[in-house]
């Protein structure tokens, strides 16, 4: 595909950019998008919630001084795009600026072998039935199962007043399974997902295994006792366990927070923020991963960025504006949920690189502690670094062994202290998919790590 194909004519983009700079401004950009998708679910063993949609639209922004002027419209009618450019420029009062001629240059989109749009919808319903059956077969105490399938294609095109004309064609698929286990009065839930920047080839292996895993979690929790309360060593599982790093450190590395002084990592570039065993990356180019794209939503090619090297803070995640403000190179992290939002620095696939410890040994060294396998989600205040995480699947560690599952634990702490307290990193590494929210915008992100251990952390349990 060549840049802008099918979304706007090059001549239209040139007129829109000229109109956007008619009242001045240093920079103007047109971002256009067409998105289409299908979602369906199975609940009570019945296929339902079948939704199919297609939308298109564009956003025009003008940067002047420190201010962003932005307008967006639904639809790609050239007249509407020009009107949006006029609205974005309306509050400006300076002299006309001239955009540079456009020069098309787009990296190849990430490969998609089997576009999901070409797979019959009935096959997707069949996949959900497999998930449903597999989960129900996991145990007699599985009372309810639900599962969902989602596919989305986003074609994007970016043109800006510096002459950039680029585009991308992104396809993502994802399935999720949720199981509810019941024993007398007790009810527990378990969930698991599988997703990627891929086509239907993602489901070539044994996708229904996630349904069995979700059921397994719910059944395990039936055996769960109260969670411990107090400060203790915490071992965090791999894969989605990386959401802890994503929340407590990743957001603080996003340059907008840093530049506002609203990050605990502001001014710490080059300093030790973790023990020397820890190295971490943000990589928007990982093949097939959920958080990958060929370009970010400003047309900057994505890249692999070293954020922590041997415990030292080495880099922040930038969009165009934050990079310019600091006079550093862009890192391809200017992302937006859709044409209806402004790009801001966002993570892509963020992970702690594999360490050298064996996961069993990491646990064996703990006399009394907590083992958090997966999280229900979490929140962090970037300014103070305080965070809280709900543990979805957690266990007690006693005498170096995982002894019993715990219910309803939360991890409470402070980013700087918790990151510095990581004293073991496992050699087992895998990635998981997540949906990250920031400033009201949700984007797909990957999280990953092997098992890690935090030497001391507050566990808010269910024991009073």
């Amino acid at each position: 595909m060549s840049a802008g194909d099918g979304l706007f004519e090059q001549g239209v983009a040139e007129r829109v950019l000229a109109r956007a700079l008619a009242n001045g401004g240093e920079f103007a950009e047109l971002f256009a998008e067409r998105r289409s998708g299908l979602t369906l679910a199975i609940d009570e063993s019945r296929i339902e919630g079948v939704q199919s949609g297609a939308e298109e639209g564009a956003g025009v922004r003008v940067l002047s001084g420190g201010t962003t002027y932005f307008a967006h419209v639904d639809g790609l009618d050239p007249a509407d795009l020009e009107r949006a450019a006029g609205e974005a420029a309306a509050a400006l009062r300076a002299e006309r600026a001239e955009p540079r001629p456009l020069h098309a240059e787009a990296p190849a989109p990430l490969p998609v072998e089997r576009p999901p749009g070409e797979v019959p919808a009935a096959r997707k319903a069949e996949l959900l039935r497999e998930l449903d059956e597999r989960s129900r077969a996991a145990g007699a105490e599985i009372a309810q199962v639900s599962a969902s399938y989602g596919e989305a294609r986003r074609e994007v095109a970016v043109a800006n007043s510096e002459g950039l004309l680029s585009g991308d064609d992104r396809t993502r698929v994802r399935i999720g399974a949720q199981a509810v286990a019941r024993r007398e009065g007790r009810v527990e839930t378990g969930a698991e997902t599988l997703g990627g920047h891929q086509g239907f080839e993602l489901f070539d292996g044994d996708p229904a295994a996630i349904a069995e895993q979700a059921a397994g979690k719910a059944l395990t929790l039936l055996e769960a006792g109260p969670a411990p309360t107090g400060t203790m060593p915490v071992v965090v599982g791999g894969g989605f366990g990386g959401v802890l790093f994503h929340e407590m450190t990743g957001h603080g590395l996003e340059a907008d927070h840093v530049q506002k002084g609203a990050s605990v990592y502001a001014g710490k570039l080059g300093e030790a923020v973790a023990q020397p065993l820890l190295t971490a990356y943000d990589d928007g180019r990982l093949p097939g991963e959920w958080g990958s794209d060929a370009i970010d939503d400003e047309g900057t090619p994505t890249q692999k960025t070293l954020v922590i090297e041997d415990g030292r803070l080495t880099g922040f995640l930038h969009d165009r504006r934050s990079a310019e403000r600091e006079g550093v190179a862009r890192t391809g992290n200017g992302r937006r949920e859709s044409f209806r939002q402004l790009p801001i620095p966002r993570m892509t696939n963020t992970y702690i690189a594999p360490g050298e410890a064996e996961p069993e040994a990491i646990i064996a060294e703990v006399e009394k502690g907590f083992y958090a396998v997966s999280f229900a989600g979490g929140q962090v205040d970037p300014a103070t670094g305080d965070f809280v995480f709900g543990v979805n699947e957690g266990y007690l560690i006693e005498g170096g062994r995982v002894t019993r599952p715990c219910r309803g634990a939360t991890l409470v702490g402070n980013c700087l202290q918790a990151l510095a307290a990581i004293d073991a990193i496992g050699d087992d590494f895998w990635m998981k998919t997540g949906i990250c929210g920031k400033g009201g915008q949700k984007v797909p992100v990957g999280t990953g790590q092997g098992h890690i251990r935090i030497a001391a952390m507050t566990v808010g349990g269910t024991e009073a």
Partner: protein
Amino acid sequence: MSALAEHAAAAVEHAGGAGAEGAEAYVGEAETREVRVHGGEIESLTAATQRGLGLRVWIGGRVGYGFGTELSAAGVAAIAERAVEAARVADEDEFAAPGEDSGVPPTPVGLSDPSQGEWSPARIAELALAVERSALAADERVVAVEQAVYFDAAERVAIAASGVAGGEYETTSCYAYLQALAQGDAGRETGLGFGLARGPAALDPEAIGREGAARATEMIGSSKPPSRSCPVVLDPTVAASFVGLLGKALGADSVQRGRSPLAERLGDEVAGEAFVLHDDGLDPAGFDSAPFDAEGTPRRCTALIEGGRLRSFLYDAYTARRGKAASTGNAGRSGYRSPPAVSASNLVVATGEKGLEELLGAAGDGVLVTDVAGLHSGVNPVTGVFSVGASGRAIRGGAAAEPLREFTIASDLVSMLRAVRAAGSEARWVPFGGSVSAPPLLIGELSVSGS
């Protein structure tokens, strides 16, 4: 008929042509504006127009949904095709059927403030700047404002369905908020201030800024409380967050699927007598008020918890049919991109007799919770068991004392409701997790875990 209503009617017609036995179309159009300011400068100014159509169709007991932004005749026909194709993939559901004609109710007065459109971009930017200035001027320990934001929307909605009279209405709304940063000896504290109204003239930027400043500075010098069970007072924002969760548990869809802690509890004692809850879809101050819900059923006021007992769940047409009840007009939707689903409109917790000071006095020795974090992850929606991060103040000798942070409160929704001893006399509209009006609540005993 407006252009919006015409698009809706055309979609219903196309759906019939494509093979649907019943259809319901929703067209939404919105003009929104947003200003973000920081450090006395405008950070961004956004103007947007959105318009799209969502179409739900029925073929026998199969339901499908299609949506799109292309509203030309060909575009609407394509949306109808998508919806019908979607329905063919779905399994049959004996309770799925188009809604019944319940007539078009009058639009409640006070849902829109026509003067909103008269506020120029420069004037709404000035309002946001005033919010920021007010926080900085309120207390010298406020060193910065992370962001101050003003947002407004003018929305029009039209619906049409096969065999049913269509309807349309318009609303306006706006809000402003800020996150103030205060510098203490041990680090920075943040504080949220916010206000919402039908139009900018009714917002008080000074008060919003002062609230953010007060919440941030009050947290300076905070420490972890000891773990114990004690009386707890939830401030209105925290009470509203929990009530928002309760609204989900009261949805008949969660109940019928056995995913609510309130399933099979109708008529049971589920709350202290002091906790009285209504869903009011007509209150002009509530942002989710409208003449009819997302399926065209008239909005109304429904008693949910009264006299300590669970009186009703929230129903849309589907769950009403399935539960042999009447729709309570609680089909909600977040826009044309998603189909209707059961949701609370405006949840209103009745006020009591006592002011906040008196509630603190009645608590004697306990904890005042002014903020909770991780509600979406720390609560099990099926059982209602929760453990969430919190911050607030100690209550000593019946008054608010030193600030507290990094503790968790844990219980389950029903146990907490049953422990409600009193509701405060002053309620406040809170927009997080739905539209909720709540006063402060005194909980007799709750587990607090800190150090």
